[in-house]
């Protein structure tokens, strides 16, 4: 089961969950991702090995996609 998570003031919010054999769930996740990107969030696909990749579309094989706010030098 793959998940789309947003880091926010509640700690985290699960926006969508889908599996490879669930095209409707994946479509819902794509729509949620697009909405959050439009709002200014940035997406990162996080792998089991600790690797992370900035993405703008839902990677088909991603297990965890995390939406984060932009960072800035303090």
């Amino acid at each position, binding site marked *: 089961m793959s998940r789309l998570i947003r*880091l926010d*003031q509640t*700690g*985290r919010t699960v926006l969508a969950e889908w599996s490879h054999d669930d095209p409707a769930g994946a479509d819902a996740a794509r729509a949620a991702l697009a909405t959050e990107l*439009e709002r200014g969030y940035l997406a990162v696909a996080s792998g089991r090995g600790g690797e992370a990749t*900035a993405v703008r579309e839902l990677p088909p094989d991603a297990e965890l996609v*995390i939406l984060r*706010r*932009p960072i800035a030098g303090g």
Partner: protein
Amino acid sequence: MTEIASPAGGEASLPLTGELPELAAVPWRPRVDEQALRRADRLWTLSTVAHEVPFLLTAAALPLLNAIMIPVGVVALAFAWVIPELYAARGAGVLREPATARGGAAAAEDRALGLLADLVGHDARGLLTSTGLVLEPGRLGVWLVGPAGALLVRPGGRRVECYCVRATGDELPRSDRVAHLLLALRADERGFATVANLTFSGARWRLRRRLRPAARTGLAAAAAAAR
């Protein structure tokens, strides 16, 4: 929910290459690499020497001219000691707890900490539990990530760079702030170092004295990993 101002200037300007989108907010900064880091290190060292030498010369020369000037020499010595300490204190500030991170709902912090613990490896989880900081090995060195910035312990473990950088928005739980920085760092280490503001580059021992105990523990772990 409010809209978040995107430093990348909107969706159309977000790169698809895996680089940090936030780089678009600092187009004047050259992308950090190993050579740029070495150059920054040298500049910090030269700057420190330039600050120190006049005071040290003054402290040495004045008493030779006249014994009555000994107190002035002592004051000059004090300045020579204080100035690099002030720089180190500024660098240590990146691992201080931000005021906005101390409060907040405990449940939100628990959820954020749970996700952060899932993101880090088994080895880093112990340090996260005891210090609240995340150890992340990178190509440029070993990073120690906190809620308001990160330290980079360079290979060998003797030199440290301090970066002030944070997630935008004040209401995020502390662990969420760390997770933001960790994800950005993992996605693009050089981009992360470019977006962040370098606040100190210098000897690890000088920085260590200015850190809170938990951060000292984290620094020691990062130095051990960098050796």
